[in-house]
């Protein structure tokens, strides 16, 4: 039954994603792209959960690499998005001056 449940979640999220993203104005498309990119680092969760004690060496290497790459994606992605959006915020204040 699990595949069915997972498919439900997948289909619903696709619909939801379309609704949400189509509301983002073009001004924010670059931050959206990098923000979405950060979210795609979600594989980190899976990589963490797979790094168990007693794994064979190959699995440890693969797992550690996966964690490293996914972390770069997550941390870098959110940080860079935040940097961009900070400017948008500054601008608002700037506009008010």
């Amino acid at each position, binding site marked *: 039954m699990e595949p069915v449940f997972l498919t439900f979640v997948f289909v619903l999220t696709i619909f939801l994603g379309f609704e949400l993203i189509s509301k983002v104005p073009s001004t924010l498309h670059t931050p959206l*792209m990098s923000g979405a990119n950060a979210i795609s680092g979600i594989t*980190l*969760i899976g990589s963490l959960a797979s790094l168990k*004690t007693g794994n064979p060496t190959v699995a440890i290497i693969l797992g550690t690499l996966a964690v490293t790459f996914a972390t770069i*994606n997550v941390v870098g992605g*959110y940080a860079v998005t935040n940097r961009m959006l900070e400017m*948008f915020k500054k601008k608002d204040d700037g506009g008010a001056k």
Partner: protein
Amino acid sequence: MNTATLLINFAYVISAGLFIFGLKMLSSPATARQGNLLSALGMLLAIVVTLFYSGLDYKWIVVGVIIGSVIGLVAAYKVQMTSMPEMVALFNGFGGIASLLLAWGEYHQHPELSVFIALVTFLSAFIGGITFSGSMVAFGKLAEKIPSKAIVFSGQHIVNGAILLIALASGVIFAINPESSYAIFLLIVMVSLLFGVTSVIPIGGADMPVVISLLNSYSGLAACAAGFVISNNILIVAGALVGASGIILTNIMCKAMNRSLANVLFSGFGATTQAAGSGKQEGEIRPATAEDVYYILEAADSVAIVPGYGLAVAQAQHVTQELGELLEENGSEVSYAIHPVAGRMPGHMNVLLAEANVSYDQLVEMDDINPRMDTVDVCVVIGANDVVNPAALNDESSPIYGMPIIETHRAKTVIVLKRSMNPGFAGIQNALFFNPNTRMYFGDAKASIQALVAEFKSD
């Protein structure tokens, strides 16, 4: 299924909610930053609760997380705003490879998979691999580490088709009998990496943003597939959100260029058109000095500034803002006309001008400025080229024919700031530069504008 696992998974529901709220808040500039922070909080929550799974090998987790965080942070804070597209490509590739590695690791430890799980394992590895190598090529092209032009050779589509076929065939074999197909799996990994390269190499640098957005969508789908592999909802939710977002952005960009996605991916755009447009130098050009331009601007009642990729290259956003303020002090009405695909990413110009503190109400969209273009005294085109090329309107043979443009040629006077007569990224000549009411003000955009600013100040 013990209680800890159950609680962890309920926490994932909260994470999913935070991602969704985060995206919702991205729909307005005022709340976008909190939205991103909320999304990051969701990620943090998911990470923290995951660490409560029993039996984790914390040693290696710490190693990976620390290395990754340091690299990610340094990269994020060192990157120039103008290099955003490369950065996104790079990060994106890393997300893809992580999905590949995760699927590989799972398969390595539990090779006895059901057909369904074998299928999603294949998808996770295959899409992840394409995302990684494709993103690296895109990164290379944008950072000009490899030639940014479309690299095409005859039979390319056949080669790519063959590679894809091999990959799919391997996938089927693998899904039927995963337990004894370790070699096939490695083949899949290789082929996916190869396919990423061969499918992105023939796409020109100008089309890289579309490719990146598409690869962004892929990385989401790879994460989804990985979620199916390990039966983890949060991977599926987050991956599907990214997948949807990438597809929508890709679509928006293609529409703004009036091209189909197939055309972007398969036509070798940058390569062929370079040839097509090269011989078309017609008419006379009228260069102008800083002083000439100063007098023109000084007398203008309304000025529209049209930024393009050159503004990003020259990092001229701050001086542009300064020039805009001086013009306003001088009594002109100043607006910034933003083309949706000016620059190299959707919304690229908005980010740059936001960085330079240009206020919102001065930004005008293409559809709003065009109808009143006849009333604009002076258009200052700063490093834009394709997005103001009238060939898109009146030359059916032009590769950009049909793309909506900012119709600067209808303004009373046009001043174009660029370094040379070289074409933009579509690789075609621009008749605007030869118009009688156009003045070319050659030089690096930043230096040129600084000279103008000096003229205004010395006055």
